[in-house]
């Protein structure tokens, strides 16, 4: 049995006596809560990481370490990425909730009125680490304030099975153009392992495919003025027509409503041959080489490679999930939360997390491109430049609140989804145009 020590009993009695002797009157007179109730708690809401080892690292190592070093309590809570926006809205409206919330892409603009300016922290990080990439900066800063602190970019690349693509004729590496990809995809589907691509309402794999796909054909949401809706163009219609046939000929048609986890499972089970994804498929296959094997009984990880999306008539583009951290205005622990943010962004702490990601996430500053991790595994190398080369939604305008609204409503994604379900290309583009006009004219 645990025996209380004499000293601790005296201490406890002393503090109890202090409260008892002065009572509530004493507490009220001093205007301060008793000292032992003053430990600050910071509540941090993040996504459930696609690299489970990183969540473990936070819980078992980094959070306890931060608590010790900063003298505060840190509650880390993880939810499915698709639930972050609803949670943020609910918290802002009720004026209470997590102090720090992870934001995806340009949703920061939707919550701009409800966050604390983090310019000092962000610019300090930028100075220390060789500059924040333009792509990342455009999501976090509206030019006046930093609505959030840039965190990282889980790059979106096509994970594919080398052997299957070679069998389908892609002997010189991954197809360079959409047309080549379609030709190979046709053979892949005929061989029983099609391409898997979601066109559903899911934060990562759907928009990071549909936006760059549209751009690569020359399509865009708005003109550079950020007002004139420009989606209804010959180029967009062409892209939709191509997608409709490409879908039927080469894709797993069951993928239409997949979320961000479905393609991981389908790929690892050997159902599909290629899919736009973060590196989580490869990382999981590497973690369990005995579980995930090819039909020949070899570890699947050795048959996986990554490639950027192919090029279209207007060039090659990428859009990668951008993650940042918002400090909420309603938070009563803003100083403590800032302190914690500063702590996680110090190089030695951030590096531990970065290493646990094994290249799944690319940091937002230039310095990390030099990190030896990128030389460890050539399969992960394509992810190194994700944060440098991405293009933000809302192109050719800014990724502002209107662009964020369009992204949250999955308008571009639905335009393609409607077409592959049978709506004529012209009509689906017209539908997207009318939806975008409602947003941009408001």
């Amino acid at each position, binding site marked *: 049995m645990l025996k209380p020590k004499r000293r601790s009993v005296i201490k406890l009695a002393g503090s109890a006596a202090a409260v008892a002797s002065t009572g509530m009157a004493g507490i009220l007179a001093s205007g301060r809560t008793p000292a032992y109730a003053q430990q600050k708690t910071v509540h941090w809401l993040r996504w459930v990481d696609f690299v489970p080892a990183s969540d473990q690292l936070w819980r078992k190592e980094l959070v306890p370490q931060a608590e010790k070093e900063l003298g505060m309590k840190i509650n880390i809570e993880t939810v499915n990425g698709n639930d972050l926006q609803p949670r943020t*809205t609910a918290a802002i409206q009720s004026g209470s909730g997590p102090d720090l919330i992870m934001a995806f892409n340009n949703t920061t603009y939707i919550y701009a009125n409800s966050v604390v300016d983090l310019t000092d922290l962000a610019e300090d990080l930028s100075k220390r680490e060789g500059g924040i990439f333009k792509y990342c900066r455009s999501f976090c800063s509206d030019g006046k304030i930093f609505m959030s602190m840039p965190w990282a970019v889980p790059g979106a690349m096509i994970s594919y099975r080398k052997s299957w693509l070679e069998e389908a004729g892609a002997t010189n590496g991954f197809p360079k153009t959409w047309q080549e990809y379609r030709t190979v995809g046709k053979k892949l589907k005929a061989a029983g392992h099609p391409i898997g691509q979601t066109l559903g309402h899911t934060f990562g794999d759907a928009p990071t495919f549909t936006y760059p796909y549209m751009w690569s054909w020359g399509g865009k949401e708005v003109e550079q003025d950020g007002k004139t809706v420009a989606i209804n163009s010959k180029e967009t219609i062409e892209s939709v027509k191509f997608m409709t046939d490409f879908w039927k000929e080469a894709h797993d048609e069951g993928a239409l*409503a997949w979320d961000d986890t479905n393609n991981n499972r389908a790929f690892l089970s050997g159902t599909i041959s290629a899919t736009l994804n973060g590196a989580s498929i490869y990382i999981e296959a590497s973690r369990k080489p005995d579980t995930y094997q090819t039909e020949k009984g070899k570890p699947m990880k050795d048959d996986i490679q990554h490639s950027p999306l192919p090029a279209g008539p207007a060039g090659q583009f990428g859009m990668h999930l951008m993650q940042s951290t918002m400090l909420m205005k309603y938070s009563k622990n803003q100083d403590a939360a800032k302190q914690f943010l500063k702590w996680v962004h110090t190089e030695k702490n951030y590096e531990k997390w970065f290493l646990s990601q094994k290249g799944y996430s690319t940091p937002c500053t230039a310095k990390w491109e030099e990190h030896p991790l990128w030389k460890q595994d050539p399969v992960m190398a394509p992810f190194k430049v994700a944060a440098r080369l991405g293009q933000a939604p809302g192109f050719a305008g800014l990724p502002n609140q209107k662009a964020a609204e369009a992204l949250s409503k999955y308008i571009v994604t639905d335009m393609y989804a409607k077409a592959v379900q049978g709506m004529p290309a012209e009509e689906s583009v017209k539908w997207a145009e009318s939806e975008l006009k409602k947003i941009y004219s408001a």
Partner: protein
Amino acid sequence: MAVTAVPGMVGGRQPLPWMRKLEDERWLAFTLLLPTAILLGLFIAYPFVEGIFLALSDARVGDPGHFVGLKNFAKLWDDSIFWTSVWNTFWYTAVTTVFKLALGLWLAMLLNRHFRGKAIVRAFILLPFIIPTVLSTFAWKWMFDPTFSVINWTLFNLGFIKARINWLGDPSLAMTSIIVVNIWRGVPFFAISLLAGLQTISPELNEAAAIDGARPWARFWLITWPLLLPVTMVVMLFSVIQTFADFQLVYVMTGGGPANATHLFATYAYQIGIGTGLLSQGAAVSLAMFPFLFLIVVIQLLYIRRVEVR
């Protein structure tokens, strides 16, 4: 011995003046109703009024907004997804209610018979209703999974299909899938409620009719059904309200997809209001449900009254 009551001595205390007031029935009724009225006001009337104000403003997350009149409703009028949701909600409610009623009644009739293990079967029937909806819907989501569907696997291995059925990826199949799950979940409620109704019908009526030569079908239509009608109508009223405003099931199964094909009022309101942060537009979608639901409820209540009078 004559006993004289001494005023104020009964129970040792004089009743307080406000207690006296309660002797007046009107005050008593008021006092007894007050807690319920406060609860209803706080949790039903206040959010409802707040919802109306929100729908008439241009509020978005973190911005209280200004009064804009009916602008949000005008926007909805031109919103094709909204009209899809309206159609879906009616279709979803109508189809599921018909099936839930038919299957529930059938089950209730079976359960009303005597057989061994009756109590256990009755308890088991309630399972779909007892399991939290989100949990059971997740199980269904797995069964309809595009890649790993156990239904597809079974049909494939039995040789009924050659290619996978795209349960949640095809708009009409996705709608059918959520309808199936709603029926599965709702049948027990109908069955148990109707069973309770059936047990109030005196068996003698049926026996008398049988002696007179009435066949089972005639006995059902002429005796059981009319006597069960008041209960049936109330059960249907509850079910229609719940189904019309359903959220969890669709949210978990399809999230309103593919490409907004399975949105109901509630899921669409959630997507716009809470997901995108356009609170006023979300409130407008949500409020648009009210006149439809109000009309359905009034018609049903009038019908119930007619049935009861008869």
